[in-house]
Structure formats: structure tokens, C-alpha cells
């Protein structure tokens, strides 16, 4: 089985801070990581490969050169090879333009059985790129996968809902996006880390001219959405710290509630 995995390098937003005046992200010192949901996607692919000997797992990413670090991590987990789409002409893409570029990369790779991605990336938080790649490729999608079963060309997916799940059947080739409840991503294997560094040729870099895409399909200008402005969220005006013993504080609280007709 030929499995493709979409993975993105993202800043670890848990440690991100913003400048309250300019609203810019303080990028210095923020580590870049493999997007968490994508690690679940890669794990799903590797588990299918383990169960179906002879399968291959190829990771495809779009991003600047430094995304290679993340791809090495993917190979150290067990991916066979990687494609990095990197070109200044891709930069500034919104999800529409990003999905065009990644779909062009996938078309160049050729036939595949399964395309797996994360539900969403923790920087943009859009969850749009997966479905938009599927649409561009003209294949069906199942998002929010929390369980995947393979039977020949038939895939049965539990799709997470807010209050439960639905079970969905779909035929390959298809796109599946994964949530963290799907699995526990495996650790990198030390031997494979060395191996990945020793075989840089397993990461193929494609630029704009290497894939079948037009200038009006990717990058900043053709992107339908624009970031109009960005700013740090305003902290709500500080309230009142109540004082005294615990009982006194509770009494004050209810005095305030009454005065303001809250209860």
C-alpha cells in the first residue's frame, strides 16, 4: 500500500508570547515542532505499514528549508522518504493556495492509496488544508478520525463528533485527517535518526518549477484571504480582589451580587 502523510512544521504555540502593542508574535527562542495532530497521522500510517508489509510511507510538507529538521524526525519515526515543497513563490499562501501547492506535489508523486493528515495545525488552527487538498485531488475525505480500520481497499473510520462519533465507510484512494485520540505516536528510533542524517537524499526538495502549478494558484497574491491586521488579545480589565477571611470574602461577593442585581 502506498501511504502519503501531510505534515507541517509549526512553532510550539504553548510557548509563544505576543507583543501587546504591535501584536506581533515573538518568534525568537520559540522551538519548531512537528504539528501534534500530524504526529498522530504519521503514527496511523506507520501502524498500517506495520500490518501490511511492503507498504511505503512518504511524508509531504510545504515550508521553508528548516522544515527538513521536522522531516528527519518523521524518518526517525519510520517514514521511508519525504518531499519538501519549498520556494519563495509558495510563501504567504492561505489554505486555498497551500492546498493547491501540496496537491500539485502529490500529483507529481503519482498514484497512492491513502492520504493522511492532521485535523489541524496549531499555528493557523484552521483545519482547512486537509479537506481542500482532497477537493483539489477530487478524492473523498473523512475528517476527525479517532479510529481507522483497513480491509483491502475499504477503510472504516470512526469520525469524532461533539457528543459521540459516526462510523464511515470509504474506498481508497481517500484523505483522512486525524485527531489526537486516534493513537499514541511512537518515539523516534536512535538508529533511524543517524540513518536519516546519513541519507539526506531521502528528502527531495521541489520548488515551484518542479511541480505543475501556475503563478495564480499559489503564494501570497492569489490567496483569497488576507491577514488584514493582527493583534494580541486584550486582557479583560482587572476586576476586584476580595479581601479578609474566607467567610468575609464570600459575604462581600454576595453583597456585590445583590447590589449589581446579579442574583
Amino acid at each position, binding site marked *: 500500500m502506498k501511504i502519503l502523510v501531510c505534515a507541517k512544521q509549526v512553532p510550539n504555540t504553548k510557548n509563544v508570547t505576543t507583543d501587546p502593542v504591535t501584536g506581533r508574535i515573538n518568534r525568537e527562542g520559540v522551538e519548531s515542532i512537528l504539528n501534534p495532530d500530524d504526529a498522530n497521522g504519521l503514527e496511523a500510517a506507520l501502524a498500517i505499514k506495520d500490518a501490511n508489509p511492503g507498504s511505503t510511507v512518504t511524508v509531504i510538507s510545504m515550508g521553508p528549508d528548516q522544515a527538513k529538521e521536522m522531516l528527519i524526525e518523521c524518518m526517525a519515526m519510520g517514514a521511508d522518504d519525504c518531499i519538501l515543497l519549498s520556494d519563495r513563490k509558495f510563501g504567504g499562501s492561505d489554505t486555498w493556495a497551500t492546498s493547491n501547492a501540496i496537491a500539485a506535489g502529490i500529483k507529481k508523486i503519482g498514484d497512492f492509496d491513502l492520504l493522511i493528515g492532521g485535523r489541524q495545525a496549531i499555528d493557523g488552527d484552521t483545519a482547512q488544508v486537509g479537506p481542500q487538498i482532497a477537493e483539489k485531488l477530487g478524492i473523498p475525505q473523512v475528517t476527525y478520525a479517532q479510529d481507522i480500520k483497513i480491509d483491502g481497499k475499504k477503510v472504516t473510520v470512526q469520525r469524532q463528533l461533539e457528543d459521540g462519533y459516526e462510523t464511515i465507510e470509504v474506498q481508497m484512494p481517500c484523505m483522512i485527517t486525524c485527531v489526537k485520540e486516534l493513537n499514541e505516536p511512537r518515539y523516534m528510533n536512535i538508529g533511524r535518526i543517524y540513518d536519516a542524517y546519513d541519507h539526506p537524499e531521502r528528502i527531495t526538495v521541489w520548488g515551484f518549477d518542479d511541480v505543475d502549478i501556475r503563478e495564480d494558484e499559489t503564494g501570497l497574491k492569489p490567496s483569497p484571504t488576507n491577514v488584514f491586521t493582527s493583534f494580541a*488579545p486584550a486582557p479583560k480589565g482587572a476586576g476586584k480582589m476580595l479581601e479578609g477571611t474566607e467567610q468575609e470574602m464570600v459575604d462581600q461577593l454576595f453583597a456585590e451580587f445583590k447590589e449589581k442585581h446579579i442574583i
Partner: protein
Amino acid sequence: MGRLKEDRSDRSDWKGVWVFAEQRQGVLNSVAIELLGEGKKLADDIGTELCALLIGENMGDIAKDLIAYGADKVYVADAPLLKNYTTDGYTNVFEQAIEAYKPEIILLGATHIGRDLAPRVAKRVTTGLTADCTHLDYDSTKYTDFLAAITPAKVADKKIEDNAYNLKMTRPAFGGNLMATITCGSCRPQMATVRPGVMDKATRDDSRKGEVISLDIKLSEADIRTKVLEIVKTAKDMVSLTDAEIIVSGGAGLGSADGFKLMQEFADAVGGVVGASRAAVDAGWIDHSHQVGQTGTTVKPKIYFACGISGAIQHLAGMQNSDIIVAINKNEIAPIFEVADYGIVGDLYKVVPMIIEAWGKNA
């Protein structure tokens, strides 16, 4: 299809504010009522009509309900093939409806269905999509006022002018560390998914009049490439955090799963619903369906009691719009106190029983 010409003269071909009236098994999702509330404001500012798109099979009186909640027109696609949500079935309906009626704006709830459907539709009709919005403006003055109230950041007048006829869609990104306003100036329709629980619900008025229009949809079995085998509810009841007027939320400070017994007692006493921070959910003390925050539910109750919650930015993102926030925490420098209207530094196991007692006497 969605691209506007360079000179933008064809902009006026696109008219009306549409909301997707998401229903599951014949029950209208409450986010649809929030979208109608927000959509009405936008439609009034633009001077256009508010329409709802309803997709499914045998949906009873939902179309009437949508009119009562403010829709001037309800477009209905009713067919056996649309009984359950499928990406392909609904995308095809959307595409045909957009082609036929050319709406200027389309809002969908950022639910597990909305976030599956909207990107596919946007891509199909070649337009942009802004994810998970928490604030929308059409009117430029209202937008500048909104910005001025929450940030010292300024936007150039020229930029505002250029976007006078574009929807300004504001959303959190980078895990809630950053807010961004997105516009979609070169394509129509302008599409956004809207975070559930954030916008004010429309008020119901059964005397409202509206038109129900049946869509003539071309759809065959072969168009739908996924099969829904079953739909399973695991949460005992949908924990209706979004509708709750009072929420009592517990965090890591509870110390153990047992702490949620006190929280339940608290909720029962004040007529509220139990919420939780991610830390408490990850510790396995309570089900994920109770989680409030960026990756859980966004809430806006009249009173939010945060008990033993430190106030990580991802939690704050989901509750800071509550009318009144009361924080109880041992640690006086916990970030939760920065958003709290009333802060109580103390042991929640002492304070909560006192609040329960005082509530009984006062309410």
C-alpha cells in the same frame, strides 16, 4: 467561479447574507440560531436580506423556526440522500445553491460538521474561508470601534477604506495567543466558520413572515462516496455548556477526581453546569465533553466560577467573555485573576461550601 474581476465591478452580483442551518437527526443545532442573530446584524448593516440554507430529509418545522429566528428566506434541500450529513452530498448542494443564488456572505458553525464541509465548499467554488471566527463586522466604523476597545494597534485609514465593502472576520490563532482580522477582497462569496457559543442568539418571534424556497438539486447515489454506517452518542447527555447560565468549573487545583463531587454539588445548588479545565480532563477526572477552552467548548454564561483553575491562555480563550467571572484559587498570582471580576484567594474546599450556603440564603 468565485473570483472577482480585477476592477471589482462584478461585486454587486453577489447579494444576501446566508447562514447554514445545521441540523442533526431533525434537531436544529443551537449554533444556527447564533448565526441568525449575527447574520441579521450584518444583513442590516449591508441593507440586504438574511437567508438560511437547510439541508436534510423530513425536517419538520425547522424552516418555520428559522423564519421565527429572523430568516427572510429559507432555501431547503430535502432528499433521502441527504438524510445524514455526508461531505459529498452537502458540498454538492452548497455548490448548486451558490451558483444559483450568489450569496455575498456565508456563515457556518465551526462544528465538526461545519469544519468538514466549509473548506470543501470554499475550494469547490474558488473562494477564501476564514476559520473559527469570534467576531464579525461589515460596517467599518463598528470595526474601528471594536479594535479601539481591545487593542492599541491601529489600522491605516486607507486599508479600512479599501475594505469598506468587505467582511472583516476576526479570529484567534496561534493557540489563542494572537487575534487576526481576515478579509476576502478578491472573491465571492465571503465565507467564515463561526465558533459556537460566541455570538448572541437571535430572539424568536413567531409572527415573523418569510419565504420557504425548495431547491431543485441534482444529486445521485454515485456522487456520495462515503457511507454512514452508524451514529453513536457516547456523552450521556450533550453537556450543554453553551446554553448554561451558570458554570462551575474545576481545574487541577481540585487535586483529585473526587473534587468533582463537590463541583456537582455546587452546580446543583446554583442551578448550573459543571465545566473543567484541560488539566482536569487530561488527568482523567472528568469527561472531555465538560472541557472549556480553545480545544473544548467556548462559553459565555452569566456567572462563571473558576475553582482551582490557573487560567492558561487556552482556557481563558474559551471563557473570558462570560458576564461575571469569579475565581477561587490559592495562588494569588494565578493568571485567572487577570480576567476575574471577583478574585478570592483561598482554599476552594473551604470557600465553595460557603458559597453554596450563601447562595441558599440569598438567591
